[in-house]
């Protein structure tokens, strides 16, 4: 009897110890500490890999930029005029252009002479630029309260940009002249929005290239319609019978074509929406247009417009002699 009791006790103790051990082991397995370490290291690995990826991308960009000194040059003609949002518009436009290799920015002011604001801005921008000015004749100028579609804006300034290009084209020689053979001209208004891919699309323009433009003509987008690699018509919401129903932001022209067709200018007296056609009809026919942006299926430029800022408070305070400091450039 005593022997039996002792043996039973031993077995019971053995069982309990084993059970506790098992529970301890299970708890160890279930502890989140390990999981946290594991997850943390995963997160750190991910962020580390992302960092490395970013560095590699920057490295690629640097090497690409240094390599791209032999790609065709893009001349961008931007008409601009003094207004409250001018500096802001030029600022974000310059941020886009800073990314584009071999870009030459031709800024043409609608002013009797070059203003200090634009001169200072351009010299600080870090871009290669030419600063011009050309005043719009009074009879062609939009008056206060005129709707913005009444008269074409910027025609004189774009023509001034073209005049400068033709003068420049006639004065260069040798390598520079050879480079001009491949260069491209683009008319970029100062309030539109441009993706970087757009400039790579237009860089290899042989005559005149075209692409869709977003948010223009009362439509989400306007675009040339392409069949078998050729432009056959235009998807547009306004005056589709125009010879070239396309926005100013929707085409680029080979500089060679501009230099050899000296009569090609923008007609400041053209009726609404025909400014682009008045220039292009001297240069190409529809058959010769080169569709870009994935055969005109991608929107890479948007015809955005900035609201006129409200200045009610400013006017009220001016009457009280407490207007904002004119020396602070805005």
């Amino acid at each position, binding site marked *: 009897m005593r022997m039996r009791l002792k043996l039973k006790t031993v*077995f019971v103790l053995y*069982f309990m110890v*084993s059970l506790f*051990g*098992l529970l301890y*082991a299970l708890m*160890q*397995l279930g502890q989140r500490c*390990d999981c946290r*370490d594991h997850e943390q*290291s995963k997160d*750190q*690995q991910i962020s*580390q890999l992302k960092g*490395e990826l970013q*560095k590699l991308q920057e*490295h690629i960009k640097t090497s690409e930029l*240094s390599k791209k000194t032999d790609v065709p040059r893009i001349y961008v003609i931007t008409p601009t005029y003094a207004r*409250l*949002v001018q*500096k*802001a*518009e030029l*600022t*974000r436009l310059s*941020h*886009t252009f*800073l*990314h584009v290799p071999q870009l030459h920015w031709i800024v043409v002011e609608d002013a009797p002479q070059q203003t200090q604001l634009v001169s200072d801005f351009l010299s600080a921008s870090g871009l290669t630029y030419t600063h011009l000015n050309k005043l719009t004749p009074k009879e062609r100028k939009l008056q206060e309260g005129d709707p913005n579609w009444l008269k074409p804006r910027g025609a004189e300034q774009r023509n001034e940009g073209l005049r400068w290009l033709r003068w420049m084209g006639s004065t260069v020689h040798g390598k520079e002249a050879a480079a001009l053979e491949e260069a491209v001209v683009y008319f970029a208004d100062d309030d539109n*929005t*441009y*993706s970087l891919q757009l400039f790579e699309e237009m860089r290899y323009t042989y005559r005149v290239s075209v692409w869709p433009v*977003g*948010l223009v*003509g*009362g*439509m*989400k*987008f306007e*675009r040339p*319609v392409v069949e078998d690699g050729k432009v056959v018509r235009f998807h547009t*919401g*306004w005056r589709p019978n125009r010879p070239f129903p396309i926005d100013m932001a929707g085409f680029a022209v080979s500089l060679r074509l501009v230099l050899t067709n000296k009569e090609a200018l923008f007609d400041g007296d053209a009726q609404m929406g025909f400014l682009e056609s008045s220039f292009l009809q001297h240069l190409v026919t529809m058959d010769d247009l080169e569709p870009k942006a994935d055969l005109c*299926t*991608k929107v890479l430029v*948007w015809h*955005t*417009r*900035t*609201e006129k*800022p409200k*200045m*009610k*408070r*400013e006017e*009220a*305070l001016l009457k009280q002699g407490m207007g*904002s400091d004119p020396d*602070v450039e*805005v």
Partner: protein
Amino acid sequence: MKSIFYTRFFILLPWILIVIIVIDIDTKRLSVRNTASFYLSRLGNVQQRQVVRTTRTSSSSTTASSSGRNATSLPVIYAITPTYSRAVQKAELTRLANTFRQVPQFHWIVVEDANSHTELVSRFLARCGVRYTHLNVFTPRRFKRTGMPRATEQRNLALGWIRGHRGSKDKGVVFFADDDNTYSLELFEEMRSTRRVSVWPVGLVGGRRYERPLVEKGKVVGWYTGWKADRPFAIDMAGFAVNLQVILSNPRALFKRRGAKPGMQESDFLKQITKVEDLEPKAKNCTQVLVWHTRTEKVNLGNEPKRQQDSVFIEV
């Protein structure tokens, strides 16, 4: 028979326990190995960085190499951008990205006002070339009426993300960048040195050419503004930046939604984290305008066809 069964069970039990414990130890060893590999990879990183520096030094100017060296210790600028779907959304994000891409040590936190990530923004961010975090939170319809503050939930979600993913060893500055404003590159270098909260003028805001803090002897003493000048912080959302550690050490500081009066969002937030006398004036003692409160006109879609006319779907 029974006794044999019990005997075998009790003999096997400890072996099972031993196996389980060994497995557990193996797991721990694995985590130890992960840690070791992490440190080793860090060492590899250091070596790679040295290589990169060498490359830069040989291929670029001294200035570039020195800035390259500084880049590793530069505070990160976290730009919080609330956005919502509309016709000009992609255009706005495009030119914003064109600016941000040129700012070193930059982290873009884009918060959509939506129930889930939209495909347009997801695809855009994946190709934008800026380091980013993509979040979304839907603003309840009752908060979308005219005159009510916008983007409150989105900014608060971004603050929550920062508090959950950054720690005391991180150096950075938090800035609220709406998706339609215009920012000069100089602005980001000005705000990078923010120790607590820095302020600067904002152009074209509040019905004026600019609004700005009034500064005397390097201290903010008042506000030049045409609207509610009696606010404790009479400043626009684009007119201040906050050091990352200030955000982390005030975990309950959020933008108020309930009971917020018009134009008080900025004041209600800044009141929780700083005082006027502690503000740091930037932009040459607040005499330079480096950011503009621009707004894009609503798009006229009067000629848009009622039915899908184009055979190709085109994202705008």
